[in-house]
């Protein structure tokens, strides 16, 4: 019953996936791994494709995993299953919006839970990255150099933003914002990979 399993897995991911796409990756990864649906390498490739194509990363991943596991119907099922919990929960929230707003705004139970979940989500994102740092994805020292450069360029706008005022750092700030674009970084890493490993 591959279809039932696919539906249940992605329903669970939609239901417990707090914190958006990157945090949801760790849940998708765990389901994919536990069900033995694909290798780690295949999963990273899917994440790569999801990041360079338009749309929410979670939808892209669900569609791709669904197709790999169960063909076209698998992809329809996985994508619907990840959206379904959102539909149920968000529609309930919308219907009870004014009541909820009055009841839960400033409620310590509610506000603290949301605050703690924000911290936990950081851990989920970190674990998604840690789980992928394996010999299958990091094949040699060049891999670590690519990792270092991409990580630095992604963080660099934060570093250069601090020193405002002088002209050179404004230039650096604009340049680093341009260079930190994920799609550009993936394309550059792909070109580097082609030149190095070909």
């Amino acid at each position, binding site marked *: 019953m591959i279809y039932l399993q696919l539906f249940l897995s992605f329903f669970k991911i939609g239901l417990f996936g707090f914190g958006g796409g990157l945090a949801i990756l760790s849940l998708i990864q765990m389901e994919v791994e536990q069900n033995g649906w694909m290798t780690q390498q295949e999963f990273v490739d899917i994440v790569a494709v999801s990041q360079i194509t*338009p749309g929410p990363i979670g939808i892209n991943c669900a569609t791709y995993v669904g197709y790999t596991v169960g063909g076209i119907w698998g992809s329809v099922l996985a994508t619907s299953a990840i*959206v379904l919990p959102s539909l149920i929960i968000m529609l309930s929230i919308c219907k009870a919006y004014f009541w909820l707003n009055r009841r839960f705004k400033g409620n310590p139970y509610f506000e603290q839970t949301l605050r703690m979940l924000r911290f936990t989500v950081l*851990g989920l994102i970190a674990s998604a990255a840690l789980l992928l740092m394996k010999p299958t994805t990091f094949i040699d020292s060049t891999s670590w150099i*690519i990792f270092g450069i991409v990580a630095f360029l992604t963080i660099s706008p934060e570093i250069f933003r601090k020193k405002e005022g002088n002209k050179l750092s404004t230039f650096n700030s604009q340049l680093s914002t341009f260079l930190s674009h994920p799609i550009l970084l*993936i394309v550059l890493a792909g070109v580097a990979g082609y030149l190095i490993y070909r």
Partner: protein
Amino acid sequence: MFFQLFWTYLKIGTFTLGGGYAMLPLIQREVVDRRGWIDEQEFLNMIALAQAAPGLIAVNSAIFIGWRIGGWKGVCGAVLGAVLPSFLIILGIAMVFADWKELPAVEAVFKGIRPAVVALIAAPLFKLAKSAKISWLTALIPIVAALLIWLLGVNPVWVIVATIVITLIVVDIVERRRK
């Protein structure tokens, strides 16, 4: 209303790269500035809700705005518009990628891309940690969560459930003391 919402979200879904967060400014421009369907304050409330609820932020926002503007039909239009472009594009890629994957050139390209993808997952953590106003003490929460999942293979679902349960218990104890 169905087609207007469908069309609006289809445009947003087709032209935003980089996931849900990247969609928010575009949604704001279309829905608040251009169409005037909801005002700025309600848009901000919507973002807060879409982030607090589980699921994908782009889908959650589509549901909220669809419901506010067009009821059931609005929800269907907005969600289909938000999901369909990604679905079709990825389906197309998935169909051909299986054949390309074996080519040595494609494999070389992906050997370069894989570590970059891991960096793109890890690096935003710094910015996210800063915006979550993390302290040395609260930094323990993500560290413990990451270690549980990474080293012990705990399912992230349980980490989320544990976070909710422990927080509720602690807040309950604190609230009772106060009374």
